């Protein structure tokens, strides 16, 4: 190699190095309507099937109605969503439209100046109602558009209940424990639990807390993040006692929630387990995991059982909302698109595609699956609906609750350790 060649090669390498180091985000935008063509990206966790098709069709309709606007859909596996989204928001290369679930998690994004206020038009406001929008409201401004309401409860297989000789659904913990025993006697795994993902296990604790704690206690903890009320430990005691009856499927600690036939939803879909505590997205997930990928015909639903002496109001529910937010640099078309998706037709399509409950009351007539109509009836009767506690209290507390509950179910920790874990987590925040 002569000197000139060396120089040329070095120059080329240096250029590559500089190119690599200099690649910074240079994305423009900023909430104003632009006259030229508009490109937006949309992140959704609907990776397959009808859900994915819904977004494709809706985006196509919106693009047809708004020439010059182009929306690129990117699907992200649900378990990866939080982490990837955070990285994307930090890098300045955030998706314009992203999936959001309100509560403390959305608040952290808003407080960091990463989300944009959404202009909700009057028709949408009337159809959705204040209750659902409140979950996406921070300091009086709306930062997310709820697409569906997802109250939780216990899904069960009517056939397996019949097989075990169970008539009716349990309304108290004692009933539930008796039914668990009957199912075990009939050699049926009573309750499927995807504890590998932790949040399904934590849901059990949340529901015990919902029954044990008053609405005020739940609300108070949002601000002070203190969990010193006795009801928090009591909820842990309840869960520990219930866990002692060995109600969950074999190997629940390494069972995931939604991935494949071996997941908890898959166990229910294939009649390998009789019950699962989940939110209203479950019929859709189960439908995708049945052998013929059709909705499970004998799927039923009942609310979480009552607990004697609990301070939570009878009939109170807990659940989440799936919705979408606009990141700070998104063009004004983002709000427009979110309002567009709230029209009756798209809300109905959404409910059908995801087998869930639409946020718009106008569209709720489309819900016909028996499990979901039961959920809707309970929802409309509920004195109040709390958000999932991890959504409500933010990622750090949610993470600590997840770890604490999994430890408890694995027989490693005790109820007090859940509360202690949450307090310890505050030190890491």
């Amino acid at each position: 190699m002569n000197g000139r060649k060396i120089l040329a090669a070095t120059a080329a390498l240096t250029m590559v190095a500089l190119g690599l180091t200099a690649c910074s985000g240079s994305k423009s935008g900023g909430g104003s309507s632009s006259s030229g063509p508009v490109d937006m990206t949309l992140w959704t966790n609907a990776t397959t099937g009808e859900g994915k098709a819904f977004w494709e069709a809706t985006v196509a309709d919106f693009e047809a109605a708004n020439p010059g606007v182009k929306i690129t859909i990117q699907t992200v596996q649900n378990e990866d969503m939080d982490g990837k989204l955070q990285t994307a928001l930090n890098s300045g290369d955030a998706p314009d439209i992203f999936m959001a679930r309100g509560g403390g998690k959305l608040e952290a994004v808003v407080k960091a100046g990463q989300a944009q206020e959404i202009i909700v038009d009057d028709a949408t406001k009337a159809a959705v109602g204040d209750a659902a929008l409140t979950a996406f409201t921070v300091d009086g401004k709306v930062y997310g558009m709820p697409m569906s309401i997802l109250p939780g409860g216990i899904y069960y297989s009517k056939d397996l209940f019949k097989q075990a000789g169970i008539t009716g659904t349990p309304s108290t913990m004692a009933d539930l424990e008796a039914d668990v025993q009957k199912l075990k006697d009939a050699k049926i795994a009573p309750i499927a639990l995807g504890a590998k993902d932790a949040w399904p296990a934590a849901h059990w604790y949340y529901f015990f807390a919902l029954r044990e704690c008053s609405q005020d206690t739940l609300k108070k903890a949002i601000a002070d993040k203190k969990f010193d009320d006795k009801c928090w430990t009591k909820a842990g005691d309840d869960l520990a006692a219930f866990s002692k009856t060995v109600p969950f499927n074999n190997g629940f600690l390494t069972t995931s929630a939604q991935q494949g036939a071996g997941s908890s939803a898959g166990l229910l879909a294939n009649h390998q387990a009789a019950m699962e505590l989940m939110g209203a997205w479950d019929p859709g997930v189960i439908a995708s995991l049945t052998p013929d990928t059709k909705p499970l015909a004998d799927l039923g639903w009942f609310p979480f059982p009552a607990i004697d002496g609990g301070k939570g109001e009878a009939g109170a529910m807990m659940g989440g909302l799936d919705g979408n937010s606009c990141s700070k640099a998104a063009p004004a078309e983002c709000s427009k698109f979110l309002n567009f998706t709230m029209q009756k037709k798209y809300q109905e399509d959404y409910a059908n595609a995801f087998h869930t409950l639409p946020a718009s009351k106008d569209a709720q007539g489309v819900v016909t699956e028996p499990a979901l109509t039961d959920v809707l009836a309970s929802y409309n009767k509920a004195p109040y609906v709390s958000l999932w506690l991890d959504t409500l209290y933010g990622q750090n507390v949610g993470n600590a609750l997840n770890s604490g509950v999994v430890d408890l179910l694995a027989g490693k920790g005790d109820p007090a350790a859940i509360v202690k874990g949450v307090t310890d987590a505050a030190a890491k925040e």
Partner: protein
Amino acid sequence: MSDSLGENSPVMTRSPEGPSAAGDGARRAPSPAGRPRRGGTDWRKRFEVALLTGPAIIIFVTFVILPVGMAAYYGFYKWKGYGPPTDFVGLQNYVTIFKDSSFHEALQHNGMIVVLSLIIQGPVAVVMALLINQKMRGRSLLRVLIFVPYVISEVIVGTGWSLMLQTSGAVNDVLTKIGLPGWTVDWLSDPHVAIWSLMLIISWKYIGFAVILFLAGLQGIPEEVFEAASIDGASYWQAQRHITLPLLGPTIRIWAFLSIIGSLQLFDLVYIIWGQYVASTAGTSTMATYMVLNGRNAANYGFGNAVAVVLFLISLVIALTYQRFVLRRDTEGALTEGKK
């Protein structure tokens, strides 16, 4: 990275150039350039060296040194990951780490994995290497089979093994069907068993790497030594014990070094098989999974960076100590006096 750090030091002291005024780049110059030349070519040589190493150094600094520095910086803050950090807390994150019992457990698991990897994989790999170093039929097929697991991606290995070892998975199914239902265990979630399941998977996956290294080491042992030994009446086993093992020493010590570093930083297999939360209850959490759980999943990025720094320092100290006390005789010997 630490590899090159250590190899540098002996080169530095024994460089034929002596205490040259050249920059860092000169020490890394390939050996032909080490021959001193006269006069005006000197600056030109340095310029060439700087030009040639420049890009590599830029990339190294940008993607290795800078992130380490950034992590150290973020580790002093409470930071949720958005915008620049503002809440300076000094060493508090580090205090929290060292007080956290789940970090102690993770550290303990890492320690176990380091030790068990060495004592399980080492002897087995040596024996395997000796075996397939023999001339026999199907030798290359055997070599490929042993090396295949090492080539398969961690994600696939993790998913495959986790499906097989599920409570209702293939392994327990087979045990039941061959009439050993008493042998079925919760391979993945029983804290007494899980770490051994992990060791099984790690050994299965990484032993191929050790075997290939050892095979390469065996190729370097001259045939004459064995001939001489057999003329002197040494048996096969005596030859292995007194010739092969000592001459394989440098290779074994390098392999052990790589194995230790790998074990300290183990993340992917655990994360794939046990997920984000169950690793700590199953007794398979590592420092890296602790970092992801308490940093990324909890969105406590300041704290997570502090854990990264601790993980880095622990690895660095162990690596440097190992190089100072174990690897030094290899590198020194190789450079000066030939084989001892």
